[in-house]
């Protein structure tokens, strides 16, 4: 039947009108972007200090010469991020699940989870890093690692799991109780309901804020530099120290953004592929 149908003249007129509106709003968007962008560029380039700023932050030669060192530092950021992300996901999930357990026997677990998140969300990451990275090795205990990357990573995992646990808890609590009831009615245990029914829906819902934490982790992995490790930002700092040209920082920034954007797009695509659109649609 679908192939027999041809739109009526009235419908063709409507479609033409809608296309025209789409085209117009596209043009308006392009025009306003051009005008605004042009104004910003003009304001920047005509400012009295621009040549100096351009040389200090956007020098192509400096960018090129610092790229290998910064990229090498970035590789460390990426490795730290990947390993920590997995550990944070596990620990965060554990904490979130602990927090949602019902029943008086689980009170200690609930209390621990609540206290943990309260503490590590409140503590500045830098303090945790210094305490673990400098404080613990200074105790000179037998068999305790002294590696800065290890302790830096541990600090990141401890802090970030607290954030991620809260995001996941919000997701778990957003799944309607009827879903759990339906799962339990089929004979699934509490743990099975959580694993096969509640968590898949919960995680999908909180994917965007989880991505926030992942991207933020990627940048905060640079804080390990305070323990003397050379990551992208620290590498840029070293490059800068020779001539006070800040271009390497900009190079590091661009590399970070280049990592972030595909990551976010891939998650969005994945969420859509899973058929989750949430609120929205045509009305």
């Amino acid at each position, binding site marked *: 039947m*679908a192939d027999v*149908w041809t739109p*009526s003249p009235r*419908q063709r007129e*409507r479609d033409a*009108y809608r296309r025209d509106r789409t085209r117009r709003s596209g043009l308006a968007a392009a025009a306003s972007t051009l005008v605004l962008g042009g104004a910003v560029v003009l304001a920047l380039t005509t400012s009295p200090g621009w040549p100096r700023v351009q040389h200090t932050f956007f020098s192509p030669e400096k960018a090129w010469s610092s790229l290998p060192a910064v990229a090498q530092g970035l590789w460390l950021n990426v490795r730290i991020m990947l390993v920590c992300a997995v550990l944070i996901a596990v620990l965060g999930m554990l904490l979130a699940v602990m927090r949602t357990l019902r029943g008086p026997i689980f009170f200690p677990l609930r209390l621990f989870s609540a206290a943990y998140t309260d503490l590590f969300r409140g503590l500045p990451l830098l303090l945790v890093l210094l305490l673990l990275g400098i404080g613990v090795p200074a105790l000179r205990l037998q068999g305790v690692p002294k590696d800065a990357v290890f302790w830096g990573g541990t600090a990141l995992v401890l802090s970030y799991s607290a954030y991620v646990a809260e995001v996941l808890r919000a997701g778990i609590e957003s799944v309607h109780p009827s879903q759990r009831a339906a799962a339990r009615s089929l004979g699934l245990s509490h743990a099975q309901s959580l694993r096969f029914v509640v968590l898949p829906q919960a995680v999908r819902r909180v994917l965007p804020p989880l991505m926030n934490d992942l991207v933020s982790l990627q940048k905060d992995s640079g804080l390990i530099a305070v323990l003397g490790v050379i990551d992208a930002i620290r590498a840029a700092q070293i490059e800068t120290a020779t001539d006070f040209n800040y271009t390497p920082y900009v190079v590091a920034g661009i590399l970070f953004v280049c990592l972030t954007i595909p990551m976010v797009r891939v998650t969005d695509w994945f969420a859509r592929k899973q058929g989750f659109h949430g609120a929205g649609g*045509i009305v």
Partner: protein
Amino acid sequence: MSLLSVQGVRKAFGANVVLDDLSLEVEPGECVVLIGASGSGKSTLLRCVNLLEVVDDGVIELEGQDITDPRVDADATRARMGIVFQAYNLFPHLSVLDNITLAPVRVHRLPRVEAKSRAMAMLERVGLQDRAAARPDELSGGQQQRVAIARALVNEPTLMLLDEVTSALDPELVGEVLDLLTALRSDGMTMIVSTHEMGFARQVADAVCFLDGGRIVERGTAAEVLGNPRQQRTRTFLSRITTGLPGTVQDR
């Protein structure tokens, strides 16, 4: 002039043509009941009239105005009708009273005091004046649906669309909602009701339309369509719902 005139409307979701060149006229004060199997297009028709779906072709006129024209303000058009959904669709974060006053205050710009007094009058009409402060999940299904009807009625719509409003209710709660609709009918409200309640159709319908394959197969009074259907497809449908069994082979 018809209050609502649906002319040759088509709506497809992908390859699935749900409404196929469907036409329907509704006179002011008329109560039109839509019957038909699930998937016959009853809900889609109501959603198209409420502009919750964009039609692929055809015209829908409300009081002579083409509301399917893309130049029409959809929000203003929707504000002239009320729609009640099968699943109530009350806002769970608002009290019963706030559910009802949301549109009067935000859309129709009524002073809050007046919106509240109108809402209370409407709640009294649906018999729930003592539950104004309750949250929707504290109410029974029938009470929730009566609140949903009150929420639609408080805006004084020219047309009420009711989409299988009793389908999610326990049998003993169906009555309270149908009684309310019958009272509404006596007040002269123009209504389009999609339903599986044939008894209700007999009681209130000025016209019964049987939908199948995205078209209105048969239209007539309740006595004609339900009592003495002209079309074979209508007979098959009615025999299925009255016996609760699939139609026999010779029926097809």
